[in-house]
Every structure is written in structure tokens, then in C-alpha cells.
């Protein structure tokens, strides 16, 4: 085999394994962070028994889920019922592959990008696979043959379609400023011209709101509103299949946070780092850590908002999506066009 092809294959395989491991670890520990932070907000203790500070709790949860009995109710449509948890989990993992978590650096005598795939249409790839996530939810609800599941799936599909539009339009501003669909170019543009957060604050706020809705998190978690719908689309799932839905929710949160950081908060950029004149590997390490820190902030924001705001009503949700976010997003595009025309970005 061609040595070039072999090298690319090995490099990709190592990166994929590494990203997979990091993402799953973050997902596992987000469940612990969520429970500890919610306890802190509500002045409780939270899970602190398994290991020091409860740090082994995710492991215990994982083992418990693996050994739980998986009940398949007799009234479900089996092929689709088994497929749905995979359909929701895979897109959540795939979207992370185009996000750059650090700058390119020299490793073992060659240039290595800290990103699985440097795609020309990176932003569109993310939108494409994010829109695949709705099938998992819709099919889970439909195949369960349960009215609560179906209601949850219907709500969720309507919500995801509505907020996808506002999200797409808010991203258009970023693309116009950077003049590229490639995530690396967008980060580079922000390094040279300042973070998009400064000039495109309305777009950022719309993106953040839409991201909360897209990940089905409070205040937009109507698809699984437990006071009305038992558990919504995953009512009929148990054991490891149930935990797939749970992990997909957290994986989606991580990806949405990473995307928010990449598009609006300069990605792995640390202002003023070049003044320190660090050697390249050290600078790269600092930038990767900075990226992790920024993503961590957004993840904390998710938890913070969840335990602070109450749930929206369905008509409020639709009004916000179609009558507020969408028009504001269009106005925001006008504003960015003005900025680009005046050469201010």
C-alpha cells in the first residue's frame, strides 16, 4: 500500500479514537456535574459517596445501566424501536469530528491538525448531521406505540424544525464575516479581527437560544415534560437503550457548546498568547486547554439555566421561535451585511 495512504489512515484512526474517548468521558462526567451543580444551586449535597467527591459515580451509573434488564414492551414496532437510540446517538458523535480543538502543530515530523476532518463545508456538515438527530427522537416516539411517546416525538420534531431555521440564519452572519464555510477559516478570521461575540452579539444570543432548543434542554424540554408526558419519547425505553438517549443529550450539549465557542468565542484563540513567545507545543497545549475551558463554561451555562428557568408553554415556544428569533435573525443578517460593506469586521 502507498505509504502516504497508510500514514493518513493511521493518523485518522488515532485521532478518531482520541476524540471518541474524550467526548465520551466528558459526557459521563457531565452527568455528575449536572447533579452536583443542581444540588449546589438547591442547597443540597448531591452524589458524593462513590469515590472521592463522588468522582466514580459515572462509572457506577454505567455499570448499573449495563446490567439492568432491558424490557422491550410487546406493543412496539421492534426494528425501528431498536434503531432509534442509535439514530440519535450517532449524529451527536459525528458532528464533533469537524470541530478544531487546537491549532495545527508539528508532531513526529509532520503537520498535524487537532481536528478529525478539515472539511471545506464544515459548518454545513454540522447543520446536516444535527438535523439527522430529529429522526432518532421521532422514530423512538412513533415506534413505541404509546400516546405519550408520540406526543413527545411530535413536539420535538416541530421544535427542532422551528429552531433549526433561526440557528441557520444566525450562523449566516458568521459565514459572511469570515467569507468561508470552513471552521478553521472562521477561527483564523476571529484571531485576526477579534471574536465574533463582539460584533455579532444578537446573532450569538439567537444561536445560544436555538442551541438550547435543539438539544431539548430546559427551558425548552417540552418533548420530555415529565409533568405532562411521563418521559416523552423515551418512556418505553429501559437499561442501556435508555442511557443512549441520555448520553446523546449530553453529547449534543458538548457539540453545541464547542460550536458556540468556535463560531463566536474565537475557538482555541487566547488573546495575547503570542506575546509570551512559548515554544509551539506548549502554546498549542495552552490553546487546547483554553478551548476546553470555554466549552466548560458553556456546559456550565446549560446546567445553570436548567436549574434557574421554568419550562416554556408550547405556544410560547412557537411564538418565540417564529415571531421573535426568526425576524431578529434576518435583521441581524442585514446588520452584518452593513458591517461587511463598511469593512468594519
Amino acid at each position, binding site marked *: 500500500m502507498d505509504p502516504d495512504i497508510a500514514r493518513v489512515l493511521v493518523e485518522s484512526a488515532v485521532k478518531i479514537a482520541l476524540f471518541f474517548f474524550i467526548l465520551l468521558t466528558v459526557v459521563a462526567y457531565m452527568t455528575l456535574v449536572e447533579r452536583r451543580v443542581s444540588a449546589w444551586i438547591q442547597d443540597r449535597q448531591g452524589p458524593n459517596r462513590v469515590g472521592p467527591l463522588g468522582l466514580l459515580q459515572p462509572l457506577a451509573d454505567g455499570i448499573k445501566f449495563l446490567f439492568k434488564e432491558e424490557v422491550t414492551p410487546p406493543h412496539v*414496532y421492534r*426494528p*425501528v424501536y431498536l*434503531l432509534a437510540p442509535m439514530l440519535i446517538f450517532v449524529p451527536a458523535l459525528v458532528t464533533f469530528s469537524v470541530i478544531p480543538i487546537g491549532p495545527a502543530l508539528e508532531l513526529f515530523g509532520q503537520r498535524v491538525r487537532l481536528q478529525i476532518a478539515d*472539511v*471545506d*463545508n464544515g459548518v*454545513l*456538515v454540522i*447543520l*446536516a*448531521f444535527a*438535523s*439527522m438527530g*430529529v*429522526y432518532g427522537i*421521532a*422514530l423512538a*416516539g*412513533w*415506534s413505541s406505540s404509546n400516546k405519550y411517546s*408520540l406526543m413527545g*416525538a*411530535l413536539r420535538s*420534531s416541530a421544535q427542532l*424544525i422551528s429552531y433549526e431555521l433561526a440557528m441557520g440564519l444566525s450562523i449566516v452572519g458568521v459565514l459572511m464575516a469570515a467569507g468561508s*464555510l470552513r471552521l478553521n477559516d472562521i477561527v483564523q478570521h476571529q484571531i485576526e479581527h477579534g471574536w465574533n461575540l463582539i460584533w455579532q452579539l444578537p446573532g450569538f444570543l439567537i444561536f445560544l437560544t436555538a442551541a438550547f432548543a435543539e438539544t431539548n434542554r430546559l427551558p425548552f424540554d417540552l418533548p420530555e415534560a415529565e409533568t405532562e408526558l411521563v418521559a416523552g419519547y423515551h418512556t418505553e425505553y429501559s437499561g442501556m437503550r435508555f442511557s443512549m438517549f441520555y448520553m446523546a443529550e449530553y453529547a449534543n450539549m458538548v457539540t453545541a457548546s464547542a460550536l458556540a465557542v468556535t463560531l463566536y468565542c474565537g475557538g482555541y484563540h487566547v488573546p495575547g498568547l503570542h506575546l509570551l513567545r512559548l515554544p509551539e507545543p506548549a502554546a498549542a497545549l495552552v490553546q487546547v486547554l483554553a478551548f476546553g475551558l470555554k466549552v466548560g463554561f458553556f456546559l456550565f451555562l446549560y446546567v445553570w439555566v436548567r436549574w434557574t428557568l421554568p419550562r416554556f408553554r408550547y405556544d410560547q415556544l412557537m411564538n418565540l421561535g417564529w415571531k421573535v428569533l426568526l425576524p431578529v435573525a434576518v435583521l441581524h443578517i442585514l446588520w452584518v451585511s452593513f458591517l461587511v460593506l463598511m469593512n468594519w469586521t
Partner: protein
Amino acid sequence: MTIHLLLGLVLILFVFAAVRALAPSRALLAGTVLGIGALALLAVNYQALLSPEFWAGLIGFVAILSALMVVIHPNPMVSILFLIVNLFCIALFYLILRAEFLAVLQIIIYAGAIMVLFVFVVMLLNLKAEEGLRLGGGPQRWGALLLAVVFVLLMFHALHDRSDQPYVEPGAFESGFGSARALGGLLFSRYLVAFEAASLLLIAGMVGAVVVAKRKVG
């Protein structure tokens, strides 16, 4: 070499379709046997695995198979799932033809947006699986078989003539071909009139849908 492999795979598919139509209860057995046959074919032609022609053929194989399943599966929701697989295959074809931007748009618009509406409709109407769905009796069945044979012969003829030409001519595309920039440039210069006319058509369709829906309510 590759073209014979592709023809073999297409032939296997049509044998399977014929077995499925004429003797539905043996379909699983026939599928297993033909699957082993396909694997054996691949094992003999393992060099072909590195050529773009082979991958184009394999994707085409999956595309045809999924399209077939859309038609013959009794459950509408499963049909929709196979249609999504089919649309993904078309996106992969665009990728092989170096039209990256188009490939992603294919996924966003067709596999993402439009098919979600299909899923929505099936969920809302609560369509049940059609129990007695099978091919019509006697004459229709033989007619379908005849047409299938004619189609295979036609395909054989079409592919046979083209067997010497590579699927993708190296260097046939200028740099930047298929990028968002190139496509946008074309849409806003050479094809401007068609582009604007299409957008007018879409608006007319949207307004029409709203008018029809309003009349029903009030």
C-alpha cells in the same frame, strides 16, 4: 475487471428481486445465498477495492436496493427510512463527482428537511402497515418480470459500451470546482434568471399552501 464485478452485483440484486416477487417465503434464504455469492465475487476481485469505479458501483448497489425497499416494504415508516438511505447514496455520488457543496445540501435539504415532513405526516395520520401488499396477480407479475429483464439487458448494453472509460477523469475538474464559492458565482451570474425564477416559484407555492390551508379553517 471492475465493470464485470458491478454487473455481477446488479445481476445478484435482480435475481434477489425476482425471488422476492415470485416466492416471498424463500427471500431470506435467497438473500443469504446471494450475499455469500457477492462476498465471493469481491474476494476474487479484491484489487477493485481501491478504484473509485468500484465504490461508485457499490453505492449504486445500495441506492438501488434501498429504492427497491421503498417500494416493496409494507410499512410506510420503514419505506421512509429506506428513502433516506437512498438520498444519502445520492449525496455520496455527488461526493465522488467532487461536488462537495451539493452533497452537503442534498443531506440538509432532502434527507434532513423534506424527509422530516414525511415522517411527520406518517406519524400524524398514523398509517398502518398494509397487510396484503404484494404484487398483483398473473399478468401483472409476468409483465413486471419482463420489464425487469428488458431493463437489465438495457443496463448491460449501456455499461458494456462504457467499460473502457474511467468513472472520474483525473484533472477533468478545475480547482475550486463544486465549492460553495464556485456554485454561488454561477448562480448569481450565468444562471441568475433561472435562480430568481425558481425563488419566485417557491414563494408562489408557499403563498398558495397558506391560502388553501386558511380556507379549510375558516
